[in-house]
C-alpha cells in the first residue's frame, strides 16, 4: 500500500490508525532488538496520536494527507518531551522543550510519530557505527552497515517497521544509507525543508529529507514537509512545490548527463547498475549523454574542512551548563573539558579538532577560506553541466553495504563513502537515490539523480521513470 492509499483508507474509516500503529509497534518489538534501528520507540505517544486521528475521522474531520501513516524520525530532530539524543552520551537524557517544525507539519497531516532512529553521533559518519548506543544493522544482511549517518531511518523503512522515515543529509547521510538499504532517499534543495529543530551539524549543508519504499511515497512526504518556515532564515521563501502530480510525466526529451565524476571510483557492479539506469532512461525517451562536473573531485577535501569547521562551532554549546551531560570540575574550564571529553565519541572529537584547526588564526584562509572558494568552483561547474543537461545521473555510493567494522580503522576510508554525494550538499542542489538492482553480492545498489536548485519536480519525475523501468 502506498502512503496515499493508507491515508485514504484511514480517512474513509476503512482502516484504523490505531490498528496500523499497533502493527508497526509489534514488528518493532519483535525484530528491532537485533537491528537497533530505533533509539526510542514512542509507544504511548504513538498510540495516543493514532487514537486522535481515528477520533477525528469519526467526527467527520479530515486529519490530513498522511492520516495514520507511521513515521520514524532521526534522533537529531527535536521532539518535545521525548528524548533527542543525537546518539550521543552528551544528550543521552535530554528532552527538548520544543518540537522541530517538521514534526508540526507531519502531525498536522495526520502522521503518527512512531519513534526516534539511530544515527552516527551528531550525524557524523557514513555507517551509523559512530552511535554511542551501538550500530544499526542492515536489514538485508545484519553483519553489514546500513550506511550513515541516517542508518536507523533507512533501516526502519527497509525492514518494514514504518513506511516513512526522515533523516538529515549533510554530505550524503540520507542518500547513501538509502542506497545501502535498498530504499528511496531524498536530499531536497538546501532551504526547502525547515532546519528549525534539526540539531545542527554543518549549518550551510544540512537538509532534512524523506526515506520511503517508493518514489511516490517519498514525493508525498516531501510535499508535506517542504515549504517556507519563518523560523528558519535560510528557508526558501516559497511553499512546497507540487511533485506528486507530475510523477507519471515521463522523461521524453529530457537531457540526462551521466556524470563521470559520480561514477569513477565506484565498484564495477555499481557502475554496471548506473549504466543500466542510463540505458533505461534512454529507452524511456530521455537523451542521455556524458557530463562532467570537474571540480567535484575537490568536493571531499572542501567538505572535510567546511563541515567540521561549522560543526566545531555548532557543537560548542554542549558544555554541561544548561542541559545534557555534566562532569563536574574544580572550575568551569575543567568542567567544560571533562564534560566534552566524556560526552563526545572519537569521530565527533576528531571533527571538532579538524574544524577548530581549519578556522584558527593563521590557518583560516588556507583551509576554510580555500574550501569556500572551491565550493564556488563546484557550483560553477554544476551550472555549466546544467546548461547542457536537465538532470545528472551517477552512483550514490561507490560500494554496496560494507561489513560492520570494515572501515573504522582509518577515518579517511570512511570519508570516501561520500564522494558522489558531497558535491550536491556543497552546491545546495537536490538529489535522490533510487534503488536500482543489486551488486554482485546481492546487496542493494542505489542510483543517484541530481537536479539544479529547486528542480525537485523534474528530479522526482525522472526517479519515478527509473523506478518504473525496473518493473
Amino acid at each position, binding site marked *: 500500500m502506498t502512503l496515499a492509499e493508507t491515508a485514504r483508507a484511514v480517512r474513509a474509516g476503512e482502516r484504523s490508525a490505531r490498528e496500523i500503529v499497533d502493527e508497526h509497534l509489534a514488528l518493532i518489538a519483535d525484530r528491532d532488538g537485533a537491528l537497533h534501528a530505533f533509539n526510542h520507540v514512542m509507544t504511548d505517544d504513538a498510540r495516543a496520536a493514532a487514537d486522535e486521528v481515528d477520533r477525528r475521522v469519526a467526527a467527520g474531520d479530515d486529519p490530513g494527507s498522511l492520516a495514520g501513516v507511521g513515521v520514524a524520525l532521526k534522533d537529531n530532530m527535536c521532539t518535545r518531551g521525548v528524548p533527542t539524543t543525537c546518539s550521543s552520551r552528551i544528550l543521552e537524557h*535530554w528532552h527538548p522543550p520544543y518540537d522541530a517544525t517538521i514534526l508540526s507539519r507531519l502531525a498536522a497531516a495526520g502522521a503518527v510519530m512512531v519513534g526516534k532512529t539511530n544515527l552516527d553521533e551528531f550525524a557524523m559518519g557514513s555507517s551509523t557505527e559512530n552511535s554511542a548506543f551501538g550500530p544499526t544493522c542492515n536489514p538485508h544482511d545484519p553483519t553489514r552497515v546500513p550506511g550513515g549517518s541516517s542508518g536507523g531511518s533507512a533501516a526502519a523503512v527497509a525492514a518494514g517497521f514504518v513506511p516513512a522515515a526522515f533523516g538529515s543529509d549533510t554530505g550524503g547521510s540520507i542518500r547513501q544509507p538509502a542506497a545501502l538499504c535498498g530504499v528511496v532517499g531524498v536530499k531536497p534543495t538546501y532551504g526547502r525543508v525547515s532546519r528549525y529543530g534539526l540539531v545542527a551539524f554543518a549549518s550551510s549543508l544540512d537538509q532534512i529529507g524523506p526515506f520511503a519504499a517508493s518514489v511516490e511515497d517519498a514525493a508525498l512526504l516531501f510535499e508535506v514537509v517542504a515549504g517556507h518556515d*519563518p523560523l528558519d532564515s535560510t528557508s526558501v521563501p516559497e511553499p512546497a512545490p507540487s511533485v506528486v502530480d507530475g510523477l507519471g510525466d515521463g522523461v521524453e526529451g529530457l537531457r540526462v548527463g551521466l556524470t563521470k565524476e559520480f561514477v569513477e571510483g565506484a565498484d564495477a557492479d555499481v557502475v554496471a547498475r548506473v549504466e543500466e539506469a542510463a540505458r533505461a532512461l534512454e529507452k524511456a525517451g530521455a537523451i542521455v549523454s556524458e557530463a562532467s562536473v570537474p571540480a567535484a573531485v575537490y568536493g571531499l577535501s572542501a567538505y572535510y574542512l567546511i563541515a567540521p569547521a*561549522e560543526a566545531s562551532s555548532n557543537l*560548542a*554549546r554542549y558544555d554541561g551548563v544548561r542541559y545534557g551531560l555534566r562532569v563536574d570540575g574544580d572550575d*568551569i*574550564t575543567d568542567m*567544560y573539558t571533562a564534560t566534552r571529553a566524556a560526552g563526545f565519541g572519537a569521530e565527533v572529537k576528531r571533527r571538532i579538532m579538524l574544524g577548530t584547526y581549519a578556522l584558527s588564526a593563521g590557518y*583560516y584562509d588556507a583551509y576554510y577560506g580555500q574550501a569556500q572558494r572551491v565550493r564556488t568552483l563546484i557550483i560553477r561547474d554544476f551550472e555549466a553541466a546544467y546548461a547542457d543537461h536537465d538532470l545528472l545521473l551517477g552512483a550514490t555510493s561507490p560500494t554496496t553495504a560494507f561489513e560492520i567494522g570494515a572501515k573504522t580503522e582509518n577515518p579517511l576510508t570512511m570519508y570516501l563513502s561520500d564522494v558522489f554525494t558531497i558535491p550536491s550538499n556543497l552546491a545546495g542542489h537536490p538529489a535522490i537515490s533510487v534503488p536500482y538492482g543489486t551488486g554482485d553480492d546481492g546487496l542493494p545498489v542505489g542510483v543517484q539523480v541530481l537536479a539544479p536548485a529547486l528542480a525537485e519536480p523534474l528530479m522526482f519525475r525522472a526517479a519515478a521513470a527509473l523506478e518504473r523501468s525496473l518493473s
Partner: protein
Amino acid sequence: MTTVVDTDWEMVIGLEVHCELSTQTKLFCGCRNAFGDEPNTNVCPVCLGLPGSLPVVNERAVEYAMRIGEALHCTVEPSIFHRKNYFYPDMPKDYQVSQYDMPINARGWLELPDGTRIGITRAHMEEDTGKTSHVGGGGRIHDAGYALVDYNRAGVPLVEIVSDPDIRSAAHAKDYVDELRAILSAIEVSDVKMEEGSLRVDSNVSVRPAGSSEFGTRCEIKNLNSLRSLVHAIEYEARRQIQLLQDGEQVVQETRHWNEEEGRTHSMRSKEEAFDYRYFPEPDLVPVEPSAEWLDRVRASIPVLPAERRAALAAEAGTSSTADVAVVIDRGLDRLVRAAITAGADPERVVTHAVHNLAHETAANLEPEKLASLVKLETDGTLTATQAKKVLAEMLEHGGDPASIAAELGFEAMDQDALMSVVDQLVADNPAEFDRLKSGDQKVMGFFVGQAMKATQGKADGRVVTALLRERASS
C-alpha cells in the same frame, strides 16, 4: 577636573561603547527585551541556544542600527553576521553572533561640544550575553565558590560603537560618552542608562611621547560603570603606563580590570591564552542589504541632533560659552530660548535665565513671548536682575504676564536721583570702607552693593550702584 598628566607624554584613547537597543524583542527571537524581570523568564530555544534552534533577525534592530549609523555620519553598508567563537557560561551557544569585517556602519564621526571631531571606526550589530553572578568569596571573581547564570539578557540587540583612537584626554573621553549618549537618546534607540547597563564603555589607553605620531602599546580597560570611573581609570592607566616606560620597561598589551575601590587597574591575564575567536560567516543568517528607500526613510527620521542644536543656539544667542549652550540643550530649553530671542529678547539675558533660573520641568509651560517681555523689562531698566528672577519664579509657578506681576510685587525702576541719594548716604555712613574703595580695593564694592540692596529692599540695580560708586570714588 584633572589635567594632562605630564607634558612630555600624550595619552591616546579609543572608546568602545556598547549600546543596548530599546526594541520590544531580542535580536534573533521574539522573547521580550526587558530589564529587571525574574531570571530566565524571557528565554526560548533560540536565545538559550538549544540544539536545533535558529536565529531570525529583528527588523527594528536593523532600523535602529541604521539610525545610529546615520546619526554618527557613517556609511550604511550591506553587511553580514559572523560567529565569534569562545567559551563562557553567559554565552548560550559558546559563540556570539556579531559582525566582523562587513559591519552595517563604518567610517563616521561625532563632534564634541568644544568642536573637536572624533572619528568613528564602525558601529556594528551583535547579540548580548546573559548575566553571571559570582557567589561566595565576597562576589569577586577570583574568590568565588560558584556562579549563577541568567539568560534574560542573552540575545538582546546591541550596537557596538568603536571610536578611532582620536581622544587625547580623560575629559574628552567623558565628553565623547556624554555626546554619544545625547545622540543615542535623541534618536530614541536606547535608554542609554549606564547604571542599568544599557550603555557600557570600555576604554583602550596607550601613551606616547608628546609630538610622536606612532602608537604605543595599548591596554583595554574594562569594568567602567560610570563616567567618574571612566575618567579616573584613564588617568590612572595613563600614569601607570608612563611610569613603566620611564622606568625603562614595556607596556604589555592586555586587558585590565578597573577596580573602583582601590582606584587602580589590574591585569586580567587568566590561564587561557589570548582568545582566538575563529570568526567565520554565520551560516544560519543571510546578508542584510538595506534598500535605498529604507535608508532614505531612516535618514528622514533622524531628529535635530545635539551638535546641530548647539550650533543653531550658539549662532542665534551669539554666545561663545559652550558650557551655557550645553546646559541649555541638556535641559531641552533651546527651542524656548531661540523663540524668545526671535521675539526680540536680548540673547545673553535669555541664556542667563535659562542657565540659572530655569529647569526643564518648570519651563515646560513658559511661553517664549512672555519670557521675551520679561527680558525686555530688564534691558530697558524697569527691572533689576534680582527682580526679574523673582518675577520669573512667579510666572513659572502661577503663570501670568511679567508686567502685571512686576506691578503686583511693587517692582519698578528705581529713580536715578533716588539711587544717587542712597549711594551718597552709604558713602557718608561708611567712610573707612569708601577710603578702601578709593585706594583700589575692589572687594569692598560688594559690601556697598549689599548695603544698597538692604536700604532699597532689593530694588536697586546693582550695576547702577556699582557705576555710581565708581564715579564717586574716582572724583
